[in-house]
């Protein structure tokens, strides 16, 4: 039965949706003090979904050629599940401090993840758009989840208005593609375009698609929403938004542009190379002057989108494969970056100033050491995953003789060192305001330990992960 194979191929997504719905249904019947159960349930759902990835076929087209499962999509699905798992671990303490710990949060989180998983397996414009919106709408809700908090409201609203706008642009691009070819499947579109050749409508389609995706990955000049949304959204949500939807958008960038628009490869690669230059430079320079740590990390994630775009601009095996590896490392280090802000959070106190970190090394040496590892990785200094990832990305640029872009990446990394280590400076070189030893919640500590170890592992023994990324990037 063909249909059964199809169902097997989306087993992960089905399991996760089922858990999401289950959480929504049972949450009214769970007492306030037993909220932990919801967390266990969602983690269990994630693990089950992760296991199901192993039974998904490695190469199949399903549901009348609208979805696919291949190594590429499975790599990303695993990435999203890991990201969601880490975000759930860092969420509990945050929402408890905000006195707003609701089961719906986990429902939306899981639902977003389902959307992301469909996004990376879509090979048809319609299925792509539907999953895209599933993800986007859940994200808007998440960003504005703290309904009594003004900053969160502002973030949700901004994200919604601009996000809807960018979805419109995306649709516009789809319309052009459909108008040119009369079909919606990636493969058919590519075939039809190959017969027709390049024309001005195709260029408009390429530009609009690129614009919409630049918006999603927060690339300059479509980054305006990022600092505000990232600063205003609840911190765990920021961590999630800066990682998972961004990774999915990069996946779509890779699949859509390489499968559908190979005709214009030179054009869009040049475009992306320039956008990459602007994005990393802008992100880094803007981050230099920030006084709020969360906002600084918001700008830093813009800069990282810039580095990632180098991989796409260079293309080739090193480029795509480097992006996949980079995204894996990025997942760990960026969730870690926003996670450490939650550590500093107390009731009625955001914990987002540099001064909040003063002398942390003496109060919490273990935590500070992990923060240093995260910061080193963000800068790209060995022996962390960030270094290996940067080596891949810069290799791709050097290989394609994009020397100017590689040099720009290098200069940007140097700039980034300065602001990342303002935090390191506060932790190690300043004196603490209180001597009291610091005791974080166990789940947060678990999350940050996993992140720290993960980053070191990705830097010291990258072999298994690098080959996984290599295999997954193979179709492109």
């Amino acid at each position: 039965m063909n249909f059964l194979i199809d169902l097997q191929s989306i087993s992960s997504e089905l399991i996760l949706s089922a858990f999401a719905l289950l959480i929504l249904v049972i949450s009214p019947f769970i007492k306030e003090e037993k909220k932990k159960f919801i967390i266990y349930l969602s983690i269990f759902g994630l693990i089950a979904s992760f296991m199901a990835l192993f039974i998904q076929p490695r190469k199949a087209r399903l549901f009348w050629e609208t979805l696919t499962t291949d190594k590429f999509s499975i790599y990303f699905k695993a990435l999203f599940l890991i990201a969601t798992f880490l975000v759930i671990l860092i969420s509990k303490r945050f929402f408890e401090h905000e006195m707003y710990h609701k089961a719906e949060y986990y429902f939306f989180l899981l639902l977003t993840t389902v959307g992301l998983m469909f996004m990376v397996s879509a090979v048809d414009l319609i299925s792509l758009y539907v999953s895209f919106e599933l993800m986007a709408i859940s994200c808007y809700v998440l960003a504005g989840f703290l309904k009594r908090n003004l900053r969160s409201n502002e973030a949700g609203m901004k994200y919604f208005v601009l996000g809807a706008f960018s979805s419109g642009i995306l649709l516009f691009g789809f319309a052009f593609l459909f108008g040119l070819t009369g079909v919606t499947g990636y493969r058919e579109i590519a075939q039809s375009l190959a017969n027709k050749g390049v024309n001005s409508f195709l260029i408009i389609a390429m530009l609009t698609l690129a614009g919409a995706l630049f918006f999603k990955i927060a690339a300059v000049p479509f980054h305006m929403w990022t600092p505000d949304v990232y600063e205003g959204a609840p911190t765990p949500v920021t961590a999630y938004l800066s990682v998972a939807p961004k990774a999915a958008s990069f996946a779509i960038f890779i699949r859509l542009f390489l499968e559908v628009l190979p005709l214009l490869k030179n054009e869009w690669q040049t475009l992306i190379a320039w956008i990459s230059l602007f994005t990393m430079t802008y992100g880094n320079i803007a981050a230099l002057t920030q006084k709020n740590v969360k906002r600084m990390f918001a700008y830093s994630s813009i800069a990282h989108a810039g580095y990632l775009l180098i991989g796409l601009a260079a293309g080739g095996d090193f480029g795509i494969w480097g992006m996949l590896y980079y995204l894996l490392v990025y997942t760990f280090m960026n969730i870690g970056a926003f996670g450490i802000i939650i550590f500093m959070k107390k009731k009625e106190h955001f914990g987002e100033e540099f001064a909040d970190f003063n002398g942390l090394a003496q109060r919490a040496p273990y935590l500070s050491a992990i923060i240093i590892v995260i910061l080193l990785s963000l800068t790209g200094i060995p022996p962390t995953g960030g270094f290996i990832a940067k080596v891949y990305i810069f290799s791709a640029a050097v290989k394609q003789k994009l020397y100017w872009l590689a040099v720009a990446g290098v200069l940007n990394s140097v700039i980034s060192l300065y602001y990342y280590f303002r935090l390191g400076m506060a932790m190690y070189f300043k004196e603490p305001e209180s001597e009291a030893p610091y005791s974080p919640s166990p789940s947060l500590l678990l999350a940050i330990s996993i992140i720290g170890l993960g980053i070191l592992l990705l830097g010291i023994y990258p072999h298994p992960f690098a080959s996984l990324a290599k295999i997954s990037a193979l179709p492109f």
Partner: protein
Amino acid sequence: MNLQSLPLLTIVTFFPLVGIFIILFTSKQKENLIKVTANIVTGLTFLISLLLPFYFNPQAEGMQFVEKASWIPAIGVQYFMGIDGISLLLILLTTLLTFLSTLSSWRVIDHRIKEYYIFMLLLEIGMVGVFTSLDLILFYVFWEVMLVPMYFLIGVWGGERKLYAAIKFFLYTLFGSLLLLLGILALYFYHHAVTGVYTFDALQMMSDGFIIPPKLQFWIFLAFFFGFAIKVPMFPFHTWLPDAHVEAPTAGSVILAGILLKMGTYGFIRFSLPILPDASKQFVPVMVVLSIIAIIYGALVAMMQKDWKSLVAYSSISHMGFVTLGMFALTPIGLQGSIIQQINHGISTGALFLIVGIVYERRHTRLISEYSGLSRIMPVYAAVFAIMMLSSIGLPGLNGFIGEFLILVGTFQVKWWWAAIAASGIILGAAYMLWLYQRVMFGKITKEENLKMKDLNVREITYFLPLILLAFWIGLYPKPYLKVLEKPVNKIVQKVNPDYFQKKPNIIEKLFEHQEKRSEFPH
């Protein structure tokens, strides 16, 4: 047990990890236990590294103690370690100086002791790793790993402007090293394009069959140049050094001057010269001019310093100018002198920083004007300082002389006037050092506080003793050192300047020939 079957280099490099783990799990309050552990571990590392010269064969060609394993096969990165005479000497210098500076920190470092010793041990891993690795990425990893603990050493235990100095040091060196990384990548892809093999193996890159077109060599050399020259530091890139040196704690300065600076020159010798011979030759005029500027400029600025420590820091710039000058003479004698001078600089400047540290520990000021007549109250100290100062100046019989002499001879063989200008740097060096000595050691005791200063204690004498012995050993009997350097140096010159071995006999050799001929006549 057969020691040669052990992965000796890996053990030497990573042995400090043992200490790190022990200290990590020791309570912060047990300060003495932490100190003892750190001292024992660095001491043991030094003892283990002493095994290397016993099993080292100076007659053998190529690398010894080679260890090779696959690390990131996807892109052809290997765990590839091996040493020749050049790295051997630098490793021994590193383990010795780390041990001595750990010993010197016993009383000076009085807060956040646990972190201090962890960073110290981490630093040692990075430094030894740089000198042992032969895979470019592995080299790069160690090269960068060592930045981080140094940053913290300056930033936490440094002087008043420590924050500024720490980040400046970090930014400068990171900028250089990332360009170095790009150079490595360009080399890697060119190697793939020619041979079809993805590898970062430095020995493959310098093999005779692999020829890089001059234009590419030029760019890669430039990228390497930024990485290494900032570290040395060569003339226009030196501005981080006085800040870092002056603000760092004593042990940090010793390691910075004694070892970190050598990594830059080591990088030139190990990678730039043999991998990029054509570009190296092309760059000779630039490098020589920059070196000569550094020699003269460093010496002149040192003369004007009011701060004792920054005087020594600027003298470092001048001395490193000699090292790069000898290196880019591209003659075996110059190159040998350059390496010997690196060791000498580690010994004498390391000792000079320790000497400043001693008075700073007692008086908490480094201003030269605060001291005078110290020789009366601290006779042992005055003697140690005298020996080390004379070694730094290059008095015959002490180590500095051998290095400077060889460098000048090597340079003279190429262009006599390079040597002539550089020699004037030695005179300036004598001037500022002797003047410093005169100001702080002789004359009347003007300050009350100085009367109470204690002379060196046993621990302090212990850490000066090996340095003094080495200064005399190299000064009086440098043969064993020159012998281990002979093979690798000849190999590098063969690669970068093959004309040297075919050319007509040079001036000095002619001179000797002449004399020999004369002596044939009966009187």
